[in-house]
């Protein structure tokens, strides 16, 4: 087994969850990791304070794309406050492995895009 490309990461990469354009979204947010050409668009649908639905589109490396798949699974049904409180450490826990400094930006792309979608920054 590869130390980085673990089975669950590759599974999310090859068969991503919550992938595709969403009809009737409330928020659309684009994220970019210019150093390696990762590209991500998040679609969010809110019901009051709760994230009712979330999806993503994009292309990029296995780390960024599997991260978007795993994170969208995790945050569905969470409140704005709960999502805002998510940290980089929470993201690394989804991967379940040590992420090298070179791949940090890939691993954190989905979370940082989600946070800026909420903060509006």
């Amino acid at each position: 087994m590869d130390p980085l490309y673990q089975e669950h990461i590759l599974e999310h990469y090859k068969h991503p969850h919550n992938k595709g354009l969403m009809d009737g979204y409330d928020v659309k947010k684009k994220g970019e990791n210019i150093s390696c050409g990762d590209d991500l668009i998040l679609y969010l649908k809110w019901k009051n304070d709760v994230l009712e639905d979330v999806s993503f589109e994009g292309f990029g490396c296995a780390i960024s794309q599997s991260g978007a798949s795993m994170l969208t699974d995790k945050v569905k049904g969470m409140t704005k406050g709960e999502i805002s409180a998510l940290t980089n450490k929470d993201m690394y826990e989804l991967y379940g492995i040590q992420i090298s400094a070179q791949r940090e930006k890939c691993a954190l792309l989905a979370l940082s895009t989600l946070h800026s979608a909420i903060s509006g920054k």
Partner: protein
Amino acid sequence: MIDSKNIRKDFPQLDGEGYHYLDAAASSLTPQSVLDTEIDYYTHSRANVHRGLFHEAVNATELYEGARRKVANFLHVSTEEVIFTSGATEASNMLIRMIEESVTHTEEQKELVTSVMEHHASIIPLQQFSFRKGVPLHVIPMRGVGLDYEKAEEIITDKTALVSVMLASNVTGGINDVRRIADIAHRHGAIMVVDATAAMGHIPVDVESLGCDALYFSGHKMLAPTGIGALWVKYELLEKLTPSIFGGHMISHVDEQTSAWASIPSRFEAGTKNISGAIGLGAAIDYLEKVGIENIRTHVEGLVAYAIAEISKIDGVKIVSDHNIANNVGIVSFSCDFAHPHDIAEILARDRVAVRQGHHCAIPLHTALGISSTTRASFHLYNTKVDIDALVVSLKKARVIFT
């Protein structure tokens, strides 16, 4: 012919089996002779140049100016036309800023022209010139992986003041017919600038046959240390340029309010330059000339042909480099339908195959080709077919993991 086995002994980073450095286009390896030259300066001639009267200072100045002569001979130009810079980026920024500030362009002739395949270090200074002065920047498109020369004929007109094109692409490896562009530019009275960075050390670079007015490059892609490069400007143009970087050494007189510039080229080398780097660049030129650019070219052509043939056999891999090996400076870039370049490079790195992934500081080129990024294998005189075999084995491994 190159004796690879012996050549490899000259490069200390290649000491040991199973290491495959295929990233010359990002930065080439440095031979021991270059390192020795730098250490020798630091050990025996450590002093500033052009100033002291003591033995080491005189020695350092001789070494530094000797390196300038080597660069001049290498490019077939006059010594005073060579300016040491920190690399191509500083050279490009300086040159474009100086032309913007010093060369008077008329209202009828003020437009800028470059190409879509340029490195960011060339294109961004031109964009800034364009923003500041409110002059149009026109871009020559590509046809296939080369320049569209017919479009260049249309884009370069009597309104064009400056044309800047790279000699070889750092992504496709393709060599541009710079002479053809230069002739068009000169027909319309425009200044012709050439970024020779990717070509240096791979093909002979003779400014006269290229027909350009200014040319620049980095040392670290031609076996020299990092942090050194050079800018060549034709004397008639150089005379017109006011320096854009100011400080010590570049003046002949300073009073409270005004200053007068030193002679050429000193006025363009403010402060203490990278002395050991310049001396190292001279040593790198000695090394390249000892091996022979033509021999390096033949060797690298063989590697490109082999790499294209072997990589093409892998399903799902698309090569975006110039397939015409006679027109390629040793770069094979590709995209894989089974994985992103970042993941490819990660798997290759595990097998100690060193390549570069990403946009290679040429986003407009990638956009024009309709891809976001590529994986790039680039070769130099120290590479062998064994390196390419290792690359192919690793690529096949990546294909299994991500499919």
